[in-house]
């Protein structure tokens, strides 16, 4: 036995030591990224597409929003403000449901939006919370893609889920499912085929065994859409889903499309259905007054028949069965039981859901392509909820302004640009509109104040002269001999870093202009497959024709001119070609056949031409429109002759975009359907970045050359920035093996600015600014939990100027220092001297950061520089600093004088109590000192309008604060004021000395003579420490 233990011990040692020598450190994102935080800056002013609204059944303060691409948001205040509660999971939401048995806590979320436009995101199952949204667990339905409905029995453990299912392919995970154990196990109880899903499922509010299910046969491809078929139908069950019968009595015969269904809560026998049929005259609203046994066609106005795949939602007032609201282009409301309708009040178009308040039907909430709107008068006047940053970017770009601007286009919300930071935060008013319709790519001219933007299908490509506020449309037009130009819905454009006036656009051809779009030349043949089977958009839509241009296919989708050589241009097409020219477009090579493992005709979403090597490029493909949800990312180093996959199993969801670092070739950023992934080793391992970064679809990534900020255009959560990713460049096995590693940092500019700004109201979204403080960034191999760890900043004389609290996390820590020293110690008074809250800045220079962790110390340098935009000359700055510190010191000196006086006064008062004979001597001390003190500090009043007249302390600290927090040299007026205060202070000190020599001295003598407790004063240095 002894022997065995010995062997095991040896084995253990061998294993460990072997491990230590060889072991590669592979960290998850949560272990690595530490304090690197994403910054969400919105915008929220145009918000984004909403899929579903849900209200608490008994508490009208609680409202849930299910966004099409931006997760679940909860309002605790009746829709005034919303907070995100589902950031860790798929952000595309189909439906939110509240368990009526436990409405405060048990909430279900079915992911995957259900208004199936071309650009929809995907979901990945059903989720549940038992604590009102603080923690979520996934229940299943991993392959459901889109969940349309969740119905929960109010009095049993029965619940039902309607799965719409896959949009771009067959799937058996569709139909209606039932659980009789509160969601633990599920049975499929209604299924009609692999291409037909459950569009809507309703439970009779008074009889939970009565259910209505609308089944919809539908299919999308990249180039077409089809709604309707023989399998679409409306079913009813009265036995909890055991048996289902079609309820079509009164419906037309033939194929049906998407069917909307609603039950009047106040009378569940009254049903409304909206039908998509073979004939226009039969489309629209049907009503049943007998629980679906018979239907009557009431209305086929535009608002009732428009785009059924997008607007099949009908909602009945909870109190009045004759008030009906239908989603649509504008939204329609009827107050006569569905006979006639009028539009809802003006708001963003494309209405997807409506929620009535449970107590007051005049209060309504409406979910649109542009956020949530509230009404207080039954839908006539609508106001937007201004704090839902759900903007859905297709693309972004940045400029080199300071602060830099971010440009981009949004789903159904035009094109915009706005700053990455702004005084008071990035507010609604900081964003500028630069395009109508659906916005996509927006590019700034590299040198001129010109912006290019576009709308869907390049119907308009705008060249906007910002300064002169002039605009011209410049899209390439067909010329003699051209076939029809095929532009993608999201048509590609590119500018050149080599020729600033050069501008590219892609149809099936690559078009080039050398004069900002006035003259166009085709520099390629048709680079697509030109497959005619994918070009028949006119017949797209199924029962309802839908040729919006969204399905245009066999087009160029991405253009990348090499930053190294302008003659090398890459083009990727939506039908799966990767073309490259090395001679500026004279000859082209399709390299896609050289890619191993890529399914044919997979959409080439992005090509990134490398900054490091002329033949190197990255290509990102995504096949979700072929029902293929895998990530495909390849790298070539030889102009596409060979390609290597850089995808690992760590990546979840398909990818759309990749960004190469400018410094470290192995540092890459990948935007996927479910968030951001980062590799520091060229794709051997990928880490998911989750610090304040929701699992949102990242459509485009930029890396800012000057600031090293990573900027993401997300399709549902607006612009998200990770400020200064430069520490990631240093991450290597060598660094990861170290206990502590300081990352190099650029010198910090000590910014001088007014501090004015910020005009948003309480409920408006404001995006946070980046910190302007100095950053000390370091890696810890292990979290520091036990024992002391602290951080000091020392000047070049070795004096500690500031103590900071270091971060303790495993991974990357960021500690900030606002280049200030501690505030001055200010004299004790009855009220606050607010000027004394000001801390002075340190001079520019190199400071030492000393990190002490247990017995070990680690050091790095920190360089501070003055703001180049400063108004101060070197001499003026020195003068300002000297005067600031003089006043700082005067404040502390006054504090000490007042402290001395207080000590004498206190002793005098105690002396009077303990010794009646000392009264006269002590009283003289107390009186003379109190009289003097009244002129030195405020001794009465309060901090508001009951304040007393300011005295020396207040005047000194105000002047100190005025000069310390300003960015100009002290003015003549300030210097005169200083002189006045100095004289007053000197006089006060002289008066104090006189009292000390006379009254205090007498008291001390008395104390000494009578052997009483003397006055003990701390030294000035010790006084400052307390």
């Amino acid at each position, binding site marked *: 036995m002894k022997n065995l233990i010995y062997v095991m011990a040896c084995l253990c040692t061998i294993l460990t030591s072997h491990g230590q020598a060889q072991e590669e450190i592979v960290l998850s994102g949560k272990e690595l990224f530490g304090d690197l935080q994403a910054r969400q800056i919105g915008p929220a002013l145009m918000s984004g597409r909403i899929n579903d609204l849900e209200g608490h059944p008994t508490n009208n303060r609680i409202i849930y929003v299910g966004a099409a691409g931006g997760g679940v948001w909860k309002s605790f205040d009746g829709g005034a403000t919303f907070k995100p509660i589902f950031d860790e999971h798929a952000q595309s939401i189909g439906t939110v449901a509240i368990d009526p048995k436990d409405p405060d806590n048990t909430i279900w979320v079915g992911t995957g939006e259900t208004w199936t436009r071309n650009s929809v995101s995907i979901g990945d199952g059903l989720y549940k919370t038992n604590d009102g949204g603080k923690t979520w667990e996934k229940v299943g339905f991993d392959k459901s893609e889109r969940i349309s409905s969740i119905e929960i029995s109010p009095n049993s453990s029965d619940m039902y889920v309607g799965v719409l299912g896959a949009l771009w392919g067959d799937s058996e995970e569709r139909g209606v499912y039932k659980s009789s154990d509160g969601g633990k196990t599920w049975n499929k109880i209604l299924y009609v085929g692999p291409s037909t899903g459950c569009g809507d499922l309703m439970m009779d509010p008074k009889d939970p065994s009565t259910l209505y299910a609308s089944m919809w046969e539908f299919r999308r491809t990249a180039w077409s859409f089809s709604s309707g078929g023989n399998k679409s139908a409306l079913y009813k069950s009265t036995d909890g889903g055991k048996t289902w019968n079609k309820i079509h009595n009164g419906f037309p015969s033939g194929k049906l499309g998407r069917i909307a269904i609603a039950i009047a809560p106040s009378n569940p026998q009254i049903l409304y259905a909206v039908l998509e049929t073979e004939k226009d005259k039969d489309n629209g609203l049907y009503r049943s007054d007998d629980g679906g046994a018979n239907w009557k066609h009431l209305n086929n106005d535009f608002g009732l028949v428009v785009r059924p795949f997008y607007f099949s939602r009908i909602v009945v007032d909870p109190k009045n069965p004759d008030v009906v609201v239908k989603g649509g282009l504008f939204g329609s409301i009827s107050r006569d039981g569905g006979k006639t309708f009028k539009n809802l009040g003006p708001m963003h178009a494309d209405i997807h859901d409506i929620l009535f308040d449970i107590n007051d039907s005049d209060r309504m909430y409406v979910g649109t392509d542009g956020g949530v709107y509230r009404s207080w008068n039954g839908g006539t006047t609508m106001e937007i909820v201004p704090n839902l940053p759900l903007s859905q970017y297709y693309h972004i770009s940045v400029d080199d302004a300071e602060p830099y601007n971010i440009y981009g286009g949004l789903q159904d919300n035009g094109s915009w640009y706005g700053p990455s930071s702004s005084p008071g935060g990035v507010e609604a008013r900081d964003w500028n509109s630069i395009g109508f319709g659906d916005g996509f790519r927006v590019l700034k001219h590299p040198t001129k104040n010109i912006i290019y933007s576009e709308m869907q299908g390049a119907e308009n490509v705008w060249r906007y002269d910002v300064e002169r506020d002039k605009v011209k449309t410049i899209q390439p037009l067909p010329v003699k001999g051209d076939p029809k130009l095929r532009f993608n819905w999201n048509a590609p454009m590119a500018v050149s870093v080599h020729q600033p006036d050069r501008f590219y656009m892609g149809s099936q051809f690559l078009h080039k202009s050398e004069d900002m779009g006035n003259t166009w030349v085709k520099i390629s043949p048709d680079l697509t497959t030109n497959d005619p089977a994918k070009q028949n958009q006119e017949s797209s839509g199924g029962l309802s024709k839908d040729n919006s241009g969204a399905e245009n296919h066999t087009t160029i989708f991405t253009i990348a001119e090499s930053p190294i050589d302008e003659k090398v241009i890459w083009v990727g097409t939506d039908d799966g070609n990767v073309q490259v020219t090395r001679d500026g477009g004279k000859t082209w090579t399709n390299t896609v056949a050289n890619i191993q493992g890529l399914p044919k005709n997979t959409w080439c979403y992005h090509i990134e031409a490398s900054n490091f090597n002329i033949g190197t490029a990255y290509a990102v493909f995504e096949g979700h429109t072929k029902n293929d949800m895998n990530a495909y990312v390849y790298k070539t180093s030889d102009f596409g002759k060979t390609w290597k996959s850089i995808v690992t199993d760590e990546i979840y969801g398909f990818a759309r975009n990749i960004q190469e670092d400018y410094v470290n070739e192995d540092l890459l950023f990948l935007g996927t359907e479910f968030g951001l992934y980062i590799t520091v080793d060229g794709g051997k391992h990928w880490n998911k970045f989750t610090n304040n970064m929701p699992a949102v679809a990242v459509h485009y990534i930029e890396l800012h050359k000057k600031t090293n900020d990573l900027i993401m255009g997300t399709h549902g959560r607006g612009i998200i920035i990770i400020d200064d990713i430069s520490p990631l460049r240093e991450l290597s096995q060598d660094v990861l093996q170290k206990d502590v590693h300081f990352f190099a940092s650029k010198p910090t500019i000590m910014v001088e600015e007014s501090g004015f700004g910020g005009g948003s109201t309480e409920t408006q979204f404001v995006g946070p600014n980046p910190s302007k403080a100095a950053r000390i960034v370091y890696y810890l191999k292990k979290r*520091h939990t036990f024992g002391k760890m602290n951080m000091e900043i020392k000047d070049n004389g070795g004096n500690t100027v500031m103590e900071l609290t270091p971060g303790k996390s495993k991974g990357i820590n960021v500690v900030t220092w606002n280049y200030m*020293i501690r505030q001055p110690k200010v004299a004790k008074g009855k009220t606050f001297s607010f000027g004394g809250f000001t801390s002075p800045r340190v001079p520019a220079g190199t400071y030492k950061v000393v990190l002490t962790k247990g017995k070990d110390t680690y050091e790095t340098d920190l360089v501070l520089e003055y703001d180049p935009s400063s108004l101060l000359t070197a001499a003026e700055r020195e003068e300002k600093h000297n005067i600031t510190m003089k006043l700082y010191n005067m404040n502390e000196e006054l504090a000490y004088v007042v402290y001395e006086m207080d000590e004498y006064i206190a002793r005098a008062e105690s002396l009077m109590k303990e010794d009646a004979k000392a009264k006269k001597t002590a009283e003289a001390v107390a009186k003379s000192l109190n009289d003097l003190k009244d002129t030195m500090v405020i001794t009465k009043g309060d901090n508001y309008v009951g304040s007393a007249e300011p005295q020396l302390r207040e005047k000194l600290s105000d002047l100190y604060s005025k000069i310390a927090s300003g960015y100009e040299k002290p003015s003549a007026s300030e210097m005169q004021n200083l002189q006045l205060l100095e004289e007053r202070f000197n006089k006060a000190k002289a008066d104090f000395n006189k009292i000390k020599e006379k009254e205090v001295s007498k008291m001390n003598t008395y104390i000494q003579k009578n052997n009483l407790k003397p006055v003990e004063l701390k030294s000035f240095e010790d006084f400052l420490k307390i």
Partner: protein
Amino acid sequence: MKRVKLFAFMLIVAVSSAHAQDADEIINNYFENTGGYDNWGNLEGVKMTFKVKQGGLEIPVEAVQMADGRQYSKITFQGNTIMQGVYDGKTLWNTNFQTMKAEKADSESTERQKLNENDFPEALYNYKDKGYKVEFVGKETIEGTETYKIKLTKEPVTVDGEKLDDITFYYFDTENFVPIAQETEVLSGPQKGVIGQVTFSDYQEVDGFYFPFSMTQGIKDGGSSPITIDSIELNPTVSDNDFAFPEGE
């Protein structure tokens, strides 16, 4: 060869026993390892002095928490004393910053404070006796470190007229069983619904007990303010006057 297999087997046993951690084990381990379960129960009170840092501003605070629920935080700044969160067993009060006078907290806040009376030394201590519920949620990486996540549900509280669950999540380092973070939902005000987060580090011994001497307090995935503890005194001497609402001021 057999021996190698046995070794592998033992490793598996060790791993699965770690998985089998339940909430009570984790909580007991924490109290046992940081002072002893019974000793924690014998503590009568704790006084801490610490600094809250905000930019260049350092604000010194003295905080006392007694076993019977009495508590105060005293901020001394420019010679002014500001009392915050003072509770004498009946009344919860604060100093008003404008008038510098004591003002009673609203009745809902006071009621919530009453419910917390029995939370010394920690809400988790003897949680069953208080009728609280504890649940092991799972493992989670926080501060880059693997932790056991535990959910504590206390009595419901009333906020703005609504009865709400009072839930706190604790994150215990799987290596040493001390909590390194704690999260609670903000229940009132404009931040309602946001998750507040406190982190703990620099655990050091004080008369046989381990306390975190460094904390940060803020919003999850948002900004936070550091708190550095200068000293901790156990079983401090206090008088009723320290907690009493100054009537008639």
